[in-house]
């Protein structure tokens, strides 16, 4: 038989003083694409399957359906009920982990070479023939509800919900992907089946594989697992209108330490200014111990154990967020320092030394991420979802190094909006009140 399987591209990427990560683009006989790093040194494979859409696919009155479905997919399939299924999976010593975020549902699998065919048979049955038995729906729903109840009185969760509601309103991002106690209680088996049908489709799948598997084997595996999925899934909702007014919201909660989430609008991953913004964030609050906020809020003043900021470019909206926790009598001081640092960076920018240090760190630390088969598979899927080229890893550090001080400081002035910063504070903060 003619070999219809094609290995399209092989990039051997040599980073200075770093490992070569050879990514191949593999296309299965039926046309499913995947990125592969072949490494036969340990007899197992990590496989990452990710479907774009995630919990944002929920209808407004079915919030939590995708999340519940992602918890039920391992609760029985084919002729196996939940208990039989669990025994089967354990006896193969494989692991399938499922995760549902705002934008994706992912399956992270790892399996030994010695019983790979059996594992893939089981994973195929899992993906194609989940049972969603009523007793499993009820049992897993009770687990989700238990978690939601705990979240009700967790200051971090309270802050996250409050901030998202304000920022995204009626968009799916405005409510918790896990759903609410009310919405999850009302979900039916039919809702779970509908969610399943919306998520798993070929028009939205991204695949990464790392380990003891050849391109030919991976191609056959992909067709077995995925070729029979429907062509299209549920339409993905439109972008969110981000509405974050400057000011403070206090959510009263009786606990000794206030938790604050703060932020304003952010920057998209494909924006030409993303790299300058990324470096700016590293200097301001993203860079662990060396960041300005860590130095000012923790090291100099001892106002917190931890403070961090992060660019959050999601598929349907981008925000710039940070978090900090301080005793109720000290959180107002922390907020003031953060606002001051935001303003200082916006008006004065950063220094050449800060930029140089950030570049040294970011370029040096980048290869440390590629430290295990599962991590590399996940990174490769993320690259594909962001539409990055297959040689991105080799060029990424050049992009960091190409950023100039002028660019960072222009982006600082454009992006950072000290007056537009909103703080959602959960606790009993002294000296802070809800504005507006």
């Amino acid at each position, binding site marked *: 038989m003619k070999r219809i399987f094609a290995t399209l591209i092989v990039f051997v990427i040599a980073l200075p*003083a*770093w490992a070569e990560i050879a990514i191949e683009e593999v296309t299965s006989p039926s046309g499913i694409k995947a990125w592969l790093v072949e490494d036969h040194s*340990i007899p197992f494979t990590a496989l990452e399957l990710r479907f774009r859409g995630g919990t944002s696919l929920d209808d407004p009155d079915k919030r939590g359906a995708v999340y519940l479905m992602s918890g039920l997919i391992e609760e029985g399939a084919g002729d196996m009920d939940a*208990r039989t299924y669990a*025994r089967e999976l354990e006896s193969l010593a494989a692991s399938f982990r499922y995760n549902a975020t705002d934008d994706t549902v992912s399956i992270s699998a790892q399996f*030994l070479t010695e019983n790979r065919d059996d594992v893939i048979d089981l994973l195929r049955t899992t993906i194609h023939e989940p049972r969603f038995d009523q007793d499993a729906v009820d049992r897993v729903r009770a687990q989700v509800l238990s978690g939601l109840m705990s979240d009700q009185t967790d200051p971090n969760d309270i802050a996250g919900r409050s901030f998202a509601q304000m920022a995204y309103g009626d968009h799916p991002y405005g409510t918790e992907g896990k759903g609410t106690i009310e919405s999850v209680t009302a979900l039916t088996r039919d809702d779970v089946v509908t969610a399943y049908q919306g998520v798993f489709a070929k028009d939205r799948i991204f695949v990464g594989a790392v380990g003891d598997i050849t391109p030919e084997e991976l191609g056959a595996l992909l067709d077995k697992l995925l070729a029979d999925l429907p062509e299209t899934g549920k339409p993905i909702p439109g972008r969110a209108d981000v509405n974050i007014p400057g000011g403070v919201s206090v959510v009263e909660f009786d606990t000794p330490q206030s*938790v604050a989430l703060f932020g304003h609008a952010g920057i998209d991953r494909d924006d030409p200014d993303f790299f300058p913004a990324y470096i700016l964030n590293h200097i301001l609050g993203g860079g662990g111990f060396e960041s300005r906020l860590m130095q000012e809020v923790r090291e100099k003043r001892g106002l917190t154990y931890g403070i961090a900021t992060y660019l959050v470019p999601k598929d349907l909206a981008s925000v710039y967020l940070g978090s900090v*926790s301080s005793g109720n009598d000290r959180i107002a001081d922390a907020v003031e320092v953060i606002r001051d640092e935001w303003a200082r960076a916006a008006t004065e920018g950063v220094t050449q030394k800060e930029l140089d240090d950030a570049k040294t760190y970011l370029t040096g630390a980048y290869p*440390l991420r590629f*430290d295990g088969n599962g991590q590399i598979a996940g990174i490769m899927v993320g690259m594909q979802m962001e539409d990055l080229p297959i040689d991105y890893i080799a060029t990424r550090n050049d992009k960091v190094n190409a950023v100039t001080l002028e660019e960072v400081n222009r982006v600082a002035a454009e992006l950072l909006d000290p007056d537009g910063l909103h703080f959602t504070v959960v606790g009993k903060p002294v000296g802070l009140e809800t504005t507006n």
Partner: protein
Amino acid sequence: MVRALALSAALMAATPLAASEGHEAVTTFTLDNGMDVVVIEDHRAPVVQHMVWYRAGSADEPVGSSGVAHFLEHLLFKGTDTLAPGEFSATVAANGGNDNAFTSYDYTAYFQRVAADRLELMMRMEADRMRNIRLSENDIVTERDVILEERNQRTDNSPRALFGEQMSASQYLNHRYGVPIIGWRHEMETLDMEDALSFYQTHYAPNNAILVVTGDVEPDEVKSLAEQYYGVIPANPDLPVRVRSQEPPQTAERRLTYKDARVSQPYVQRSYLAPERDPGEQEKAAALFLLAELLGGSTTSYLNEKLQFDQQKAVYTGAFYRGVSLDDTTFDLIVVPAAGVSLQEAEDAMDQAVADFIAEGVNEEDLDRIKMQLRAAQTYARDNVDGIGNRYGRALTSGLTVEDVQAWPDILQAVTGDEIIAAAREVLQPEASVTGWLMKDEEVTQ
């Protein structure tokens, strides 16, 4: 989070599968000054993790100074004779690396992950701060505020953590494991320069430390660098023997209720005083490890089958055994009741299930399945040499030897069902137990 506290009794965390050393490239040796060295090779990527573990944790603290081991861990990121405050981490970052540290009952550990060709710089700095830290009063005052905020974040803002503190304090009548790693707040507030330096001078010495290097390194190269940087530091001849006050026979069952308005999901937890893994004598601990797996380690575990699937009285069940410990450890059970099920019903169902498990004996198929997974874990573990390094660090600071670590997988495979039941009968004694209910504030017990 940097300079993090290792909460060793994190009951809600998944119990990791133990892996073995079957194909791991492990080399061990000891420097002339008594510093142990463990090297684990993985040449797939030119990255190295450099760690120094001290045989000193919160259970080695003087009475009245709870939290000082962890406080000192924070202070080691301040200056030395040759490094300005913060310069250690800044230097690691400037070399594209990450660094951190953690404290537990039996150890304090410091580590950096960095390009393999920077190993020498890491050793030079880590060896420097083993003997040469220089602290200012301002460092003390500011960093004490930081650890108090850390306690706020980890413990005082979390009813589960506060409940856990009360459980441990009730479990240990005489041993220091009853005191939280981060410290009691009223004692943390009094920690000063003298407390920190005294702990440092007593415990931080090469003959009380273990160097663990994992990644793209050659053992010979590590040895010559270790001799150059750590080998020249004199051993502390006055290093105290780790003698801790031990538990008396425990003769009274204890119960507690912890009520907090911030609790939305009540649960019941039971802990039993249990023997730990001892050098050359790990068989009983292996049986307890497998007991925890069989009772509450997975979807198919006994408590799950009975309480979740059959009786539908729980939304979560778990069993935990932390065998790596210098002194007596605990075996823990936890049941999160389903809606409408009281804590008393949940506790009764848990006790009945454990009694039935012991009466029925171990299902050999279940045991075989767990042993198969443990063998597979040896393969998966090779993908994470840093994890293997951590396993050696924890073991060697908890009284075990390299030989014990390497023997453990085979000991697990040799455990029989009868030995597991015998261990259960011996350890799951009400007199040595604490039963705790985490409750909503408004809930009444009757």
